[in-house]
Protein backbone atom coordinates (compact mmCIF):
# COMPACT_ATOMS: atom_id res chain seq x y z
CA UNK A 1 0.00 0.00 0.00
CA UNK A 2 2.89 2.32 0.75
CA UNK A 3 4.18 1.46 -2.68
CA UNK A 4 0.87 2.56 -4.21
CA UNK A 5 0.97 5.78 -2.21
CA UNK A 6 4.42 6.59 -3.54
CA UNK A 7 3.28 5.67 -7.01
CA UNK A 8 0.35 8.09 -6.86
CA UNK A 9 2.48 10.96 -5.58
CA UNK A 10 4.95 10.13 -8.33
CA UNK A 11 2.21 10.37 -10.95
CA UNK A 12 1.08 13.66 -9.43
CA UNK A 13 4.56 15.18 -9.49
CA UNK A 14 5.01 13.70 -12.96
CA UNK A 15 1.84 15.42 -14.17
CA UNK A 16 3.32 18.77 -13.22
CA UNK A 17 6.57 17.90 -14.99
CA UNK A 18 4.53 16.85 -18.01
CA UNK A 19 2.75 20.21 -18.22
CA UNK A 20 6.06 22.07 -17.92
CA UNK A 21 7.73 19.70 -20.38
CA UNK A 22 5.07 20.58 -22.96
CA UNK A 23 6.39 24.13 -23.04
CA UNK A 24 9.94 22.92 -23.64
CA UNK A 25 9.03 20.33 -26.17
CA UNK A 26 6.82 22.57 -28.33
CA UNK A 27 9.34 25.39 -28.38
CA UNK A 28 12.21 23.02 -29.10
CA UNK A 29 10.20 21.29 -31.80
CA UNK A 30 9.55 24.54 -33.63
CA UNK A 31 12.24 27.07 -32.77
CA UNK A 32 14.97 24.42 -32.15
CA UNK A 33 16.01 26.26 -29.01
CA UNK A 34 16.20 25.28 -25.38
CA UNK A 35 14.18 27.93 -23.58
CA UNK A 36 16.13 27.95 -20.36
CA UNK A 37 13.88 30.63 -18.89
CA UNK A 38 10.82 28.40 -19.04
CA UNK A 39 11.27 27.24 -15.45
CA UNK A 40 11.28 30.83 -14.27
CA UNK A 41 8.04 31.57 -16.07
CA UNK A 42 6.53 28.92 -13.77
CA UNK A 43 7.79 30.88 -10.79
CA UNK A 44 6.33 34.14 -12.13
CA UNK A 45 3.02 32.32 -12.66
CA UNK A 46 3.16 31.14 -9.06
CA UNK A 47 3.73 34.68 -7.78
CA UNK A 48 0.95 36.22 -9.89
CA UNK A 49 -1.43 33.56 -8.65
CA UNK A 50 -0.25 34.07 -5.07
CA UNK A 51 -0.83 37.83 -5.14
CA UNK A 52 -4.16 37.50 -6.92
CA UNK A 53 -5.47 35.04 -4.35
CA UNK A 54 -3.76 35.96 -1.08
CA UNK A 55 -3.62 39.76 -1.48
CA UNK A 56 -6.56 40.64 -3.65
CA UNK A 57 -8.79 37.86 -2.43
CA UNK A 58 -9.68 36.53 -5.84
CA UNK A 59 -11.31 33.20 -6.40
CA UNK A 60 -8.40 30.74 -6.77
CA UNK A 61 -9.47 29.66 -10.24
CA UNK A 62 -9.74 33.27 -11.33
CA UNK A 63 -6.25 33.73 -9.85
CA UNK A 64 -4.95 30.93 -12.04
CA UNK A 65 -6.62 32.53 -15.05
CA UNK A 66 -4.93 35.85 -14.27
CA UNK A 67 -1.60 34.03 -13.95
CA UNK A 68 -2.15 32.34 -17.32
CA UNK A 69 -2.81 35.69 -18.98
CA UNK A 70 0.20 37.28 -17.25
CA UNK A 71 2.57 34.47 -18.19
CA UNK A 72 1.33 34.37 -21.78
CA UNK A 73 2.13 38.07 -22.09
CA UNK A 74 5.49 37.53 -20.41
CA UNK A 75 6.27 34.70 -22.82
CA UNK A 76 5.45 36.90 -25.80
CA UNK A 77 7.52 39.81 -24.49
CA UNK A 78 10.53 37.63 -23.69
CA UNK A 79 10.38 36.04 -27.11
CA UNK A 80 10.04 39.39 -28.86
CA UNK A 81 12.88 41.09 -26.98
CA UNK A 82 15.47 38.38 -26.56
CA UNK A 83 14.87 35.42 -28.84
CA UNK A 84 13.34 36.84 -32.01
CA UNK A 85 16.39 39.01 -32.86
CA UNK A 86 18.50 35.83 -32.69
CA UNK A 87 16.59 33.60 -35.12
CA UNK A 88 19.60 33.38 -37.44
CA UNK A 89 22.25 33.31 -34.70
CA UNK A 90 24.30 30.23 -33.74
CA UNK A 91 22.62 28.02 -31.16
CA UNK A 92 25.31 28.75 -28.56
CA UNK A 93 24.35 32.44 -28.63
CA UNK A 94 20.66 31.63 -28.27
CA UNK A 95 21.33 29.30 -25.36
CA UNK A 96 23.44 31.89 -23.53
CA UNK A 97 20.69 34.47 -24.09
CA UNK A 98 18.11 32.07 -22.67
CA UNK A 99 20.29 31.49 -19.59
CA UNK A 100 20.61 35.25 -19.24
CA UNK A 101 16.83 35.58 -19.45
CA UNK A 102 16.37 32.91 -16.81
CA UNK A 103 18.70 34.84 -14.52
CA UNK A 104 16.99 38.08 -15.36
CA UNK A 105 13.56 36.77 -14.36
CA UNK A 106 14.89 35.19 -11.17
CA UNK A 107 16.65 38.32 -10.02
CA UNK A 108 13.83 40.64 -10.98
CA UNK A 109 11.58 38.43 -8.88
CA UNK A 110 14.13 38.63 -6.07
CA UNK A 111 14.03 42.43 -6.16
CA UNK A 112 10.25 42.64 -6.49
CA UNK A 113 9.19 39.97 -4.04
CA UNK A 114 12.33 39.33 -1.89
CA UNK A 115 13.87 35.97 -1.17
CA UNK A 116 11.60 35.22 1.79
CA UNK A 117 9.57 32.16 0.90
CA UNK A 118 5.84 32.81 0.59
CA UNK A 119 3.38 30.22 1.80
CA UNK A 120 1.22 29.51 -1.17
CA UNK A 121 -2.47 28.99 -0.46
CA UNK A 122 -3.71 25.84 -2.12
CA UNK A 123 -5.97 26.58 -5.07
CA UNK A 124 -8.46 24.04 -3.76
CA UNK A 125 -9.23 23.22 -0.17
CA UNK A 126 -6.76 20.88 1.43
CA UNK A 127 -7.92 17.45 2.35
CA UNK A 128 -7.82 13.97 0.96
CA UNK A 129 -9.92 11.11 -0.27
CA UNK A 130 -9.57 7.97 1.82
CA UNK A 131 -9.56 4.66 0.01
CA UNK A 132 -9.27 1.06 1.23
CA UNK A 133 -10.48 1.89 4.76
CA UNK A 134 -8.16 4.87 4.99
CA UNK A 135 -5.03 2.93 4.18
CA UNK A 136 -4.58 4.89 1.00
CA UNK A 137 -5.10 8.62 1.05
CA UNK A 138 -5.06 10.75 -2.06
CA UNK A 139 -5.09 14.49 -1.54
CA UNK A 140 -7.43 16.77 -3.45
CA UNK A 141 -4.49 18.59 -4.99
CA UNK A 142 -3.17 15.31 -6.37
CA UNK A 143 -6.48 14.52 -8.01
CA UNK A 144 -6.75 18.04 -9.43
CA UNK A 145 -3.16 17.91 -10.74
CA UNK A 146 -3.61 14.60 -12.51
CA UNK A 147 -6.99 15.65 -13.91
CA UNK A 148 -5.68 18.98 -15.22
CA UNK A 149 -2.74 17.27 -16.83
CA UNK A 150 -5.05 14.85 -18.65
CA UNK A 151 -7.36 17.66 -19.78
CA UNK A 152 -4.46 19.81 -21.01
CA UNK A 153 -2.96 16.89 -22.90
CA UNK A 154 -6.28 16.11 -24.55
CA UNK A 155 -7.02 19.69 -25.53
CA UNK A 156 -3.53 20.29 -26.80
CA UNK A 157 -3.45 17.11 -28.87
CA UNK A 158 -6.77 18.09 -30.46
CA UNK A 159 -5.52 21.63 -31.03
CA UNK A 160 -2.36 20.48 -32.75
CA UNK A 161 -4.01 17.86 -34.91
CA UNK A 162 -7.29 19.58 -35.85
CA UNK A 163 -6.96 23.35 -35.98
CA UNK A 164 -5.33 25.51 -38.64
CA UNK A 165 -2.89 27.00 -36.13
CA UNK A 166 -1.96 23.52 -34.95
CA UNK A 167 -1.31 22.48 -38.52
CA UNK A 168 0.84 25.59 -39.02
CA UNK A 169 2.84 24.61 -35.93
CA UNK A 170 3.43 21.13 -37.23
CA UNK A 171 4.41 22.46 -40.63
CA UNK A 172 6.93 24.87 -39.08
CA UNK A 173 8.53 22.16 -37.01
CA UNK A 174 8.87 19.97 -40.08
CA UNK A 175 10.33 22.48 -42.50
CA UNK A 176 10.35 26.22 -41.88
CA UNK A 177 11.29 27.18 -45.43
CA UNK A 178 8.56 25.10 -47.02
CA UNK A 179 6.04 26.34 -44.46
CA UNK A 180 6.89 29.91 -45.35
CA UNK A 181 6.39 29.17 -49.04
CA UNK A 182 2.94 27.76 -48.25
CA UNK A 183 1.99 31.14 -46.81
CA UNK A 184 2.40 30.32 -43.14
CA UNK A 185 3.66 33.19 -41.00
CA UNK A 186 6.55 31.34 -39.38
CA UNK A 187 7.50 34.14 -36.99
CA UNK A 188 3.96 34.50 -35.70
CA UNK A 189 3.68 30.74 -35.28
CA UNK A 190 6.85 30.61 -33.22
CA UNK A 191 5.65 33.50 -31.05
CA UNK A 192 2.35 31.73 -30.53
CA UNK A 193 4.11 28.55 -29.48
CA UNK A 194 5.94 30.56 -26.84
CA UNK A 195 2.66 32.08 -25.70
CA UNK A 196 0.98 28.68 -25.31
CA UNK A 197 3.98 27.19 -23.53
CA UNK A 198 4.16 30.11 -21.10
CA UNK A 199 0.42 29.98 -20.41
CA UNK A 200 0.75 26.30 -19.56
CA UNK A 201 3.70 27.15 -17.33
CA UNK A 202 1.40 29.37 -15.25
CA UNK A 203 -0.96 26.46 -14.65
CA UNK A 204 2.01 24.26 -13.77
CA UNK A 205 3.22 26.96 -11.37
CA UNK A 206 -0.12 27.10 -9.55
CA UNK A 207 -0.28 23.31 -9.28
CA UNK A 208 3.35 22.98 -8.22
CA UNK A 209 2.95 25.56 -5.47
CA UNK A 210 -0.30 23.98 -4.31
CA UNK A 211 1.46 20.65 -3.88
CA UNK A 212 4.71 22.08 -2.45
CA UNK A 213 3.58 25.36 -0.91
CA UNK A 214 6.80 27.35 -0.64
CA UNK A 215 7.22 30.03 -3.25
CA UNK A 216 10.64 31.60 -3.81
CA UNK A 217 12.35 33.27 -6.79
CA UNK A 218 14.25 30.02 -7.35
CA UNK A 219 11.16 27.81 -7.10
CA UNK A 220 10.98 27.27 -10.85
CA UNK A 221 14.55 26.55 -11.79
CA UNK A 222 15.00 22.98 -10.58
CA UNK A 223 11.55 21.76 -11.71
CA UNK A 224 12.30 23.50 -14.99
CA UNK A 225 15.49 21.55 -15.53
CA UNK A 226 13.81 18.33 -14.47
CA UNK A 227 10.93 18.97 -16.84
CA UNK A 228 13.44 19.50 -19.61
CA UNK A 229 14.86 16.11 -18.65
CA UNK A 230 11.33 14.74 -18.94
CA UNK A 231 10.92 16.30 -22.39
CA UNK A 232 14.19 14.74 -23.54
CA UNK A 233 13.21 11.42 -21.95
CA UNK A 234 9.93 11.33 -23.84
CA UNK A 235 11.48 12.55 -27.07
CA UNK A 236 11.80 16.25 -27.63
CA UNK A 237 9.27 17.72 -30.04
CA UNK A 238 6.66 15.10 -29.21
CA UNK A 239 3.57 16.02 -27.15
CA UNK A 240 2.68 12.48 -26.03
CA UNK A 241 6.39 12.03 -25.32
CA UNK A 242 6.35 14.95 -22.90
CA UNK A 243 3.38 13.36 -21.13
CA UNK A 244 4.98 9.94 -20.87
CA UNK A 245 8.41 11.33 -19.98
CA UNK A 246 6.95 13.60 -17.31
CA UNK A 247 5.00 10.84 -15.62
CA UNK A 248 7.93 8.42 -15.68
CA UNK A 249 10.35 10.99 -14.34
CA UNK A 250 7.97 11.93 -11.51
CA UNK A 251 7.62 8.29 -10.48
CA UNK A 252 11.38 7.73 -10.71
CA UNK A 253 12.05 10.78 -8.55
CA UNK A 254 9.58 9.83 -5.82
CA UNK A 255 10.84 6.22 -5.75
CA UNK A 256 14.44 7.41 -5.61
CA UNK A 257 13.51 9.65 -2.69
CA UNK A 258 11.70 6.83 -0.90
CA UNK A 259 13.95 3.88 -1.56
CA UNK A 260 17.44 5.25 -2.24
CA UNK A 261 18.14 8.54 -0.51
CA UNK A 262 16.28 11.82 -0.39
CA UNK A 263 19.54 13.76 -0.76
CA UNK A 264 20.56 11.87 -3.86
CA UNK A 265 17.18 11.92 -5.63
CA UNK A 266 18.15 14.88 -7.82
CA UNK A 267 21.33 13.10 -8.80
CA UNK A 268 19.25 10.06 -9.77
CA UNK A 269 16.98 12.19 -11.96
CA UNK A 270 19.96 13.72 -13.73
CA UNK A 271 21.52 10.29 -14.15
CA UNK A 272 18.32 9.29 -15.98
CA UNK A 273 18.85 12.19 -18.37
CA UNK A 274 22.41 11.13 -19.06
CA UNK A 275 21.48 7.49 -19.63
CA UNK A 276 18.61 8.41 -21.96
CA UNK A 277 20.79 10.72 -24.03
CA UNK A 278 23.43 8.03 -24.38
CA UNK A 279 21.20 5.08 -25.09
CA UNK A 280 18.42 6.69 -27.10
CA UNK A 281 19.09 10.38 -27.73
CA UNK A 282 15.83 10.76 -29.62
CA UNK A 283 13.90 9.77 -26.49
CA UNK A 284 11.09 7.26 -26.04
CA UNK A 285 8.68 8.66 -28.64
CA UNK A 286 10.87 11.08 -30.57
CA UNK A 287 11.78 10.80 -34.18
CA UNK A 288 15.37 10.32 -35.18
CA UNK A 289 16.33 13.30 -37.29
CA UNK A 290 19.08 12.71 -39.80
CA UNK A 291 21.44 15.58 -40.36
CA UNK A 292 21.70 16.61 -43.98
CA UNK A 293 24.54 18.59 -45.46
Amino acid sequence: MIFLNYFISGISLGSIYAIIALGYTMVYGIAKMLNFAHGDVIMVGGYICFYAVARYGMNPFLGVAVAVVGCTLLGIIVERLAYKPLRQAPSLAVLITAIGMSYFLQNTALLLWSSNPKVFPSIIERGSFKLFDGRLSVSHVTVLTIASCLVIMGVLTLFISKTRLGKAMRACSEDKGAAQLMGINVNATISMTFAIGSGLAAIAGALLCSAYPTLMPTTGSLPGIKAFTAAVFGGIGSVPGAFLGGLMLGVIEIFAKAYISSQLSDAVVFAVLIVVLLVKPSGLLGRNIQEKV
Partner: protein
Amino acid sequence: MTMKRLINLKRAEARKIYLTYAVVIAAYIICQVMSSTGLFSSSMRGMLVPICAYMVMAVSLNLVVGILGELSLGHAGFMSVGAFSGVASAILMQGTITNAPLRLALAMVIAAIFAAIAGFLIGIPVLRLKGDYLAIVTLAFGEIIKSILNNFYLGMDSEGIQISMITDTTRLLKGGRLIIRGPMGISGIQKIATFTAGFVLLMIALMIVFNLVNSRSGRAFMAIRDDRIAAESIGLDITKYKMMAFVMSAAIAGAAGALFAMNYSTIVANKFDFNTSILILVFVVLGGQGNMLGGIIAAAVLTILPEKLREFSEYRMLLYAVVLIVMMLATNNAEVKSFLAGLNPFRRKEAA
Protein backbone atom coordinates in the same frame (compact mmCIF):
# COMPACT_ATOMS: atom_id res chain seq x y z
CA MET B 1 59.46 24.76 -28.80
CA THR B 2 57.31 27.55 -27.49
CA MET B 3 59.45 30.20 -29.11
CA LYS B 4 59.46 28.50 -32.47
CA ARG B 5 55.73 28.22 -32.37
CA LEU B 6 55.31 31.87 -31.49
CA ILE B 7 57.57 32.95 -34.33
CA ASN B 8 55.50 30.89 -36.73
CA LEU B 9 52.35 32.62 -35.63
CA LYS B 10 50.72 35.33 -37.59
CA ARG B 11 51.98 38.60 -36.27
CA ALA B 12 48.64 39.84 -34.95
CA GLU B 13 48.11 36.65 -33.00
CA ALA B 14 51.59 36.69 -31.50
CA ARG B 15 51.08 40.31 -30.49
CA LYS B 16 47.83 39.42 -28.78
CA ILE B 17 49.53 36.64 -26.81
CA TYR B 18 52.45 38.84 -25.72
CA LEU B 19 50.01 41.58 -24.80
CA THR B 20 48.11 39.16 -22.58
CA TYR B 21 51.27 38.05 -20.77
CA ALA B 22 52.43 41.65 -20.46
CA VAL B 23 49.15 42.86 -18.98
CA VAL B 24 49.06 40.00 -16.48
CA ILE B 25 52.68 40.54 -15.39
CA ALA B 26 52.21 44.31 -15.15
CA ALA B 27 49.03 43.90 -13.11
CA TYR B 28 50.85 41.51 -10.78
CA ILE B 29 53.72 43.92 -10.21
CA ILE B 30 51.38 46.87 -9.63
CA CYS B 31 49.27 44.88 -7.17
CA GLN B 32 52.37 43.66 -5.34
CA VAL B 33 53.73 47.18 -5.01
CA MET B 34 50.41 48.62 -3.92
CA SER B 35 49.88 45.81 -1.47
CA SER B 36 53.35 46.16 0.10
CA THR B 37 53.11 49.96 0.37
CA GLY B 38 49.78 49.61 2.13
CA LEU B 39 47.69 51.25 -0.59
CA PHE B 40 45.28 48.31 -0.62
CA SER B 41 42.56 48.01 1.96
CA SER B 42 42.44 44.69 3.74
CA SER B 43 39.27 43.75 1.87
CA MET B 44 41.05 44.36 -1.42
CA ARG B 45 44.02 42.24 -0.32
CA GLY B 46 41.60 39.49 0.64
CA MET B 47 40.16 39.52 -2.86
CA LEU B 48 43.45 39.02 -4.70
CA VAL B 49 43.48 35.22 -4.47
CA PRO B 50 39.80 34.73 -5.42
CA ILE B 51 40.29 37.09 -8.35
CA CYS B 52 43.24 34.99 -9.55
CA ALA B 53 41.17 31.83 -9.16
CA TYR B 54 38.30 33.33 -11.15
CA MET B 55 40.71 34.51 -13.84
CA VAL B 56 42.07 30.99 -14.18
CA MET B 57 38.50 29.69 -14.32
CA ALA B 58 37.74 32.19 -17.08
CA VAL B 59 40.74 30.92 -19.07
CA SER B 60 39.63 27.35 -18.47
CA LEU B 61 36.04 27.90 -19.55
CA ASN B 62 37.13 30.03 -22.48
CA LEU B 63 38.97 27.01 -23.85
CA VAL B 64 35.67 25.12 -24.00
CA VAL B 65 33.27 27.92 -24.91
CA GLY B 66 35.43 30.22 -27.00
CA ILE B 67 37.82 27.82 -28.70
CA LEU B 68 35.90 24.55 -28.84
CA GLY B 69 32.50 26.22 -29.23
CA GLU B 70 30.62 24.05 -26.76
CA LEU B 71 28.88 25.31 -23.65
CA SER B 72 29.82 23.81 -20.29
CA LEU B 73 27.39 24.70 -17.52
CA GLY B 74 29.07 22.51 -14.94
CA HIS B 75 32.45 24.12 -14.65
CA ALA B 76 31.95 24.87 -10.98
CA GLY B 77 31.76 21.09 -10.57
CA PHE B 78 35.36 20.67 -11.71
CA MET B 79 36.34 23.56 -9.50
CA SER B 80 34.79 21.80 -6.51
CA VAL B 81 36.44 18.47 -7.35
CA GLY B 82 39.73 20.34 -7.39
CA ALA B 83 38.92 22.25 -4.21
CA PHE B 84 38.01 19.15 -2.22
CA SER B 85 40.78 16.90 -3.50
CA GLY B 86 43.35 19.69 -3.23
CA VAL B 87 42.43 20.71 0.30
CA ALA B 88 42.08 17.13 1.51
CA SER B 89 45.50 16.24 0.12
CA ALA B 90 47.00 19.39 1.63
CA ILE B 91 45.65 18.39 5.01
CA LEU B 92 46.96 14.84 4.59
CA MET B 93 50.40 16.22 3.67
CA GLN B 94 50.52 18.65 6.58
CA GLY B 95 52.69 16.35 8.68
CA THR B 96 55.13 15.31 5.98
CA ILE B 97 55.61 18.45 3.88
CA THR B 98 56.06 21.46 6.09
CA ASN B 99 57.00 23.93 3.36
CA ALA B 100 53.69 25.71 2.66
CA PRO B 101 54.30 26.86 -0.95
CA LEU B 102 55.48 23.38 -1.90
CA ARG B 103 52.43 21.84 -0.24
CA LEU B 104 50.18 24.30 -2.09
CA ALA B 105 51.83 23.47 -5.41
CA LEU B 106 51.51 19.74 -4.81
CA ALA B 107 47.89 20.15 -3.72
CA MET B 108 47.11 22.08 -6.90
CA VAL B 109 48.76 19.39 -9.02
CA ILE B 110 46.74 16.70 -7.24
CA ALA B 111 43.60 18.81 -7.66
CA ALA B 112 44.30 19.18 -11.38
CA ILE B 113 44.76 15.41 -11.70
CA PHE B 114 41.51 14.62 -9.88
CA ALA B 115 39.58 17.22 -11.89
CA ALA B 116 41.11 15.89 -15.12
CA ILE B 117 39.96 12.38 -14.19
CA ALA B 118 36.49 13.74 -13.46
CA GLY B 119 36.59 15.62 -16.77
CA PHE B 120 37.60 12.45 -18.61
CA LEU B 121 34.92 10.29 -16.99
CA ILE B 122 32.25 12.93 -17.62
CA GLY B 123 33.61 13.58 -21.09
CA ILE B 124 33.08 9.99 -22.23
CA PRO B 125 29.28 10.33 -22.23
CA VAL B 126 29.01 14.10 -22.62
CA LEU B 127 31.19 14.55 -25.67
CA ARG B 128 29.13 12.18 -27.75
CA LEU B 129 26.46 14.88 -27.61
CA LYS B 130 26.47 18.35 -29.07
CA GLY B 131 24.93 21.77 -28.68
CA ASP B 132 22.08 22.21 -26.21
CA TYR B 133 22.17 18.61 -25.08
CA LEU B 134 25.84 18.81 -24.25
CA ALA B 135 25.24 21.97 -22.24
CA ILE B 136 22.36 20.54 -20.24
CA VAL B 137 24.26 17.34 -19.47
CA THR B 138 27.24 19.30 -18.16
CA LEU B 139 24.75 21.13 -15.96
CA ALA B 140 23.43 17.76 -14.78
CA PHE B 141 26.94 16.56 -13.99
CA GLY B 142 27.67 19.75 -12.09
CA GLU B 143 24.62 19.06 -9.92
CA ILE B 144 25.56 15.39 -9.52
CA ILE B 145 29.08 16.32 -8.37
CA LYS B 146 27.56 18.72 -5.85
CA SER B 147 25.15 16.05 -4.55
CA ILE B 148 27.92 13.50 -4.23
CA LEU B 149 30.30 15.85 -2.43
CA ASN B 150 27.48 16.89 -0.12
CA ASN B 151 27.14 13.25 0.91
CA PHE B 152 30.79 12.31 1.01
CA TYR B 153 32.80 11.63 4.15
CA LEU B 154 36.54 11.17 4.26
CA GLY B 155 38.56 10.60 7.39
CA MET B 156 42.08 9.68 8.30
CA ASP B 157 43.30 7.70 11.25
CA SER B 158 46.19 5.42 12.11
CA GLU B 159 44.78 2.71 9.85
CA GLY B 160 44.73 4.93 6.78
CA ILE B 161 42.07 6.78 4.84
CA GLN B 162 38.43 5.88 5.42
CA ILE B 163 35.60 7.00 3.16
CA SER B 164 31.84 6.63 3.26
CA MET B 165 28.76 7.95 1.48
CA ILE B 166 25.43 9.45 2.61
CA THR B 167 26.01 8.90 6.34
CA ASP B 168 29.24 9.05 8.24
CA THR B 169 30.25 5.43 8.77
CA THR B 170 33.99 5.99 8.73
CA ARG B 171 34.28 4.92 12.42
CA LEU B 172 37.60 6.61 12.90
CA LEU B 173 39.91 5.36 15.60
CA LYS B 174 40.99 7.59 18.41
CA GLY B 175 43.17 10.44 17.20
CA GLY B 176 41.74 10.23 13.69
CA ARG B 177 40.48 13.27 11.87
CA LEU B 178 37.34 13.52 9.77
CA ILE B 179 38.45 15.74 6.89
CA ILE B 180 35.47 15.92 4.52
CA ARG B 181 32.26 16.03 6.50
CA GLY B 182 29.44 15.73 3.96
CA PRO B 183 27.30 18.87 3.82
CA MET B 184 29.59 20.53 6.37
CA GLY B 185 32.44 20.38 3.85
CA ILE B 186 36.00 20.87 5.05
CA SER B 187 36.85 23.22 7.88
CA GLY B 188 40.04 24.18 9.63
CA ILE B 189 41.87 24.74 6.36
CA GLN B 190 45.27 26.36 6.59
CA LYS B 191 45.11 29.44 4.40
CA ILE B 192 48.26 28.80 2.38
CA ALA B 193 47.05 30.25 -0.94
CA THR B 194 48.97 33.39 -1.87
CA PHE B 195 48.64 36.04 -4.54
CA THR B 196 51.96 34.99 -6.04
CA ALA B 197 50.75 31.41 -6.30
CA GLY B 198 47.64 32.67 -8.06
CA PHE B 199 49.74 34.68 -10.48
CA VAL B 200 51.96 31.70 -11.25
CA LEU B 201 48.93 29.48 -11.80
CA LEU B 202 47.39 32.04 -14.14
CA MET B 203 50.61 32.28 -16.16
CA ILE B 204 50.87 28.49 -16.40
CA ALA B 205 47.22 28.23 -17.45
CA LEU B 206 47.74 30.89 -20.11
CA MET B 207 50.87 29.17 -21.43
CA ILE B 208 49.10 25.83 -21.63
CA VAL B 209 46.06 27.26 -23.37
CA PHE B 210 47.97 29.46 -25.82
CA ASN B 211 50.27 26.59 -26.73
CA LEU B 212 47.32 24.29 -27.19
CA VAL B 213 45.35 26.78 -29.25
CA ASN B 214 48.26 27.48 -31.58
CA SER B 215 49.03 23.87 -32.22
CA ARG B 216 47.63 21.36 -34.65
CA SER B 217 45.08 20.37 -32.01
CA GLY B 218 44.05 23.98 -31.46
CA ARG B 219 43.38 24.46 -35.13
CA ALA B 220 41.35 21.27 -35.03
CA PHE B 221 39.29 22.69 -32.12
CA MET B 222 38.49 25.80 -34.10
CA ALA B 223 37.67 23.83 -37.22
CA ILE B 224 35.21 21.78 -35.18
CA ARG B 225 33.74 24.96 -33.73
CA ASP B 226 33.31 26.62 -37.10
CA ASP B 227 31.91 23.65 -38.97
CA ARG B 228 31.64 20.31 -37.30
CA ILE B 229 30.52 18.45 -40.38
CA ALA B 230 33.27 19.84 -42.58
CA ALA B 231 35.84 19.05 -39.88
CA GLU B 232 34.55 15.51 -39.60
CA SER B 233 34.60 15.02 -43.35
CA ILE B 234 38.30 15.87 -43.60
CA GLY B 235 38.97 13.16 -41.06
CA LEU B 236 39.31 15.02 -37.77
CA ASP B 237 38.51 12.80 -34.81
CA ILE B 238 35.89 15.05 -33.21
CA THR B 239 35.56 13.15 -29.96
CA LYS B 240 39.31 12.95 -29.42
CA TYR B 241 39.83 16.69 -29.85
CA LYS B 242 36.80 17.60 -27.80
CA MET B 243 38.04 15.30 -25.05
CA MET B 244 41.47 16.87 -25.17
CA ALA B 245 40.06 20.37 -24.71
CA PHE B 246 37.58 19.27 -22.09
CA VAL B 247 40.09 17.38 -19.93
CA MET B 248 42.62 20.20 -20.16
CA SER B 249 39.96 22.71 -19.20
CA ALA B 250 38.82 20.54 -16.27
CA ALA B 251 42.40 20.17 -15.00
CA ILE B 252 42.95 23.93 -15.04
CA ALA B 253 39.62 24.46 -13.29
CA GLY B 254 40.61 21.90 -10.65
CA ALA B 255 43.85 23.72 -9.87
CA ALA B 256 41.92 27.00 -9.66
CA GLY B 257 39.48 25.34 -7.26
CA ALA B 258 42.30 24.25 -4.97
CA LEU B 259 43.78 27.75 -4.98
CA PHE B 260 40.38 29.27 -4.27
CA ALA B 261 39.59 26.89 -1.41
CA MET B 262 42.89 27.36 0.37
CA ASN B 263 42.12 31.05 0.73
CA TYR B 264 39.28 30.26 3.15
CA SER B 265 39.17 28.35 6.39
CA THR B 266 35.99 26.49 5.44
CA ILE B 267 34.57 25.29 2.15
CA VAL B 268 31.31 23.52 1.37
CA ALA B 269 30.17 21.87 -1.86
CA ASN B 270 27.20 24.24 -2.17
CA LYS B 271 29.62 27.10 -2.78
CA PHE B 272 30.31 25.63 -6.22
CA ASP B 273 26.79 25.59 -7.58
CA PHE B 274 25.14 26.50 -10.84
CA ASN B 275 25.42 30.21 -10.00
CA THR B 276 29.20 29.90 -9.91
CA SER B 277 29.20 28.20 -13.30
CA ILE B 278 27.09 31.05 -14.69
CA LEU B 279 29.33 33.67 -13.11
CA ILE B 280 32.32 32.22 -14.93
CA LEU B 281 30.31 32.09 -18.13
CA VAL B 282 29.54 35.80 -17.69
CA PHE B 283 33.31 36.50 -17.47
CA VAL B 284 33.89 34.63 -20.71
CA VAL B 285 30.97 36.20 -22.56
CA LEU B 286 31.74 39.73 -21.43
CA GLY B 287 35.42 39.36 -22.24
CA GLY B 288 34.62 37.99 -25.66
CA GLN B 289 34.44 34.30 -26.47
CA GLY B 290 37.92 33.03 -27.29
CA ASN B 291 39.59 36.18 -26.00
CA MET B 292 41.70 35.14 -22.99
CA LEU B 293 42.73 38.65 -21.95
CA GLY B 294 39.13 39.85 -22.18
CA GLY B 295 37.96 37.06 -19.91
CA ILE B 296 40.72 37.80 -17.39
CA ILE B 297 39.86 41.50 -17.27
CA ALA B 298 36.15 40.75 -17.01
CA ALA B 299 36.84 38.39 -14.09
CA ALA B 300 38.76 41.10 -12.25
CA VAL B 301 36.26 43.88 -12.94
CA LEU B 302 33.20 41.81 -12.08
CA THR B 303 34.79 40.63 -8.83
CA ILE B 304 35.97 44.06 -7.67
CA LEU B 305 33.00 46.17 -8.83
CA PRO B 306 30.35 44.51 -6.64
CA GLU B 307 32.60 45.04 -3.61
CA LYS B 308 33.06 48.71 -4.43
CA LEU B 309 29.41 49.30 -5.22
CA ARG B 310 27.93 47.69 -2.18
CA GLU B 311 24.81 49.82 -2.23
CA PHE B 312 23.94 48.28 -5.58
CA SER B 313 24.85 44.78 -4.50
CA GLU B 314 21.31 43.48 -4.91
CA TYR B 315 21.39 44.50 -8.54
CA ARG B 316 24.58 42.57 -9.17
CA MET B 317 23.03 39.34 -10.41
CA LEU B 318 20.52 41.32 -12.44
CA LEU B 319 23.41 43.12 -14.08
CA TYR B 320 25.06 39.80 -14.97
CA ALA B 321 21.84 38.66 -16.60
CA VAL B 322 21.60 41.85 -18.62
CA VAL B 323 25.27 41.49 -19.62
CA LEU B 324 24.62 38.01 -21.01
CA ILE B 325 21.56 39.06 -23.02
CA VAL B 326 22.94 42.35 -24.33
CA MET B 327 26.30 40.84 -25.29
CA MET B 328 24.58 38.11 -27.28
CA LEU B 329 22.25 40.54 -29.02
CA ALA B 330 25.10 42.95 -29.72
CA THR B 331 27.33 40.32 -31.31
CA ASN B 332 24.72 38.29 -33.15
CA ASN B 333 22.02 40.64 -34.37
CA ALA B 334 22.73 42.86 -37.35
CA GLU B 335 20.34 45.63 -36.29
CA VAL B 336 21.64 45.88 -32.73
CA LYS B 337 25.20 45.68 -34.04
CA SER B 338 24.74 48.62 -36.40
CA PHE B 339 22.88 50.58 -33.73
CA LEU B 340 25.79 50.15 -31.32
CA ALA B 341 28.28 51.01 -34.06
CA GLY B 342 26.33 54.24 -34.61
CA LEU B 343 26.86 55.14 -30.96
CA ASN B 344 30.62 54.81 -31.30
CA PRO B 345 32.02 58.31 -31.93
CA PHE B 346 35.41 56.93 -33.00
CA ARG B 347 34.16 54.73 -35.78
CA ARG B 348 35.71 55.18 -39.17
CA LYS B 349 33.60 56.95 -41.75
CA GLU B 350 32.62 54.56 -44.45
CA ALA B 351 33.61 55.49 -48.00
CA ALA B 352 30.77 57.18 -49.79
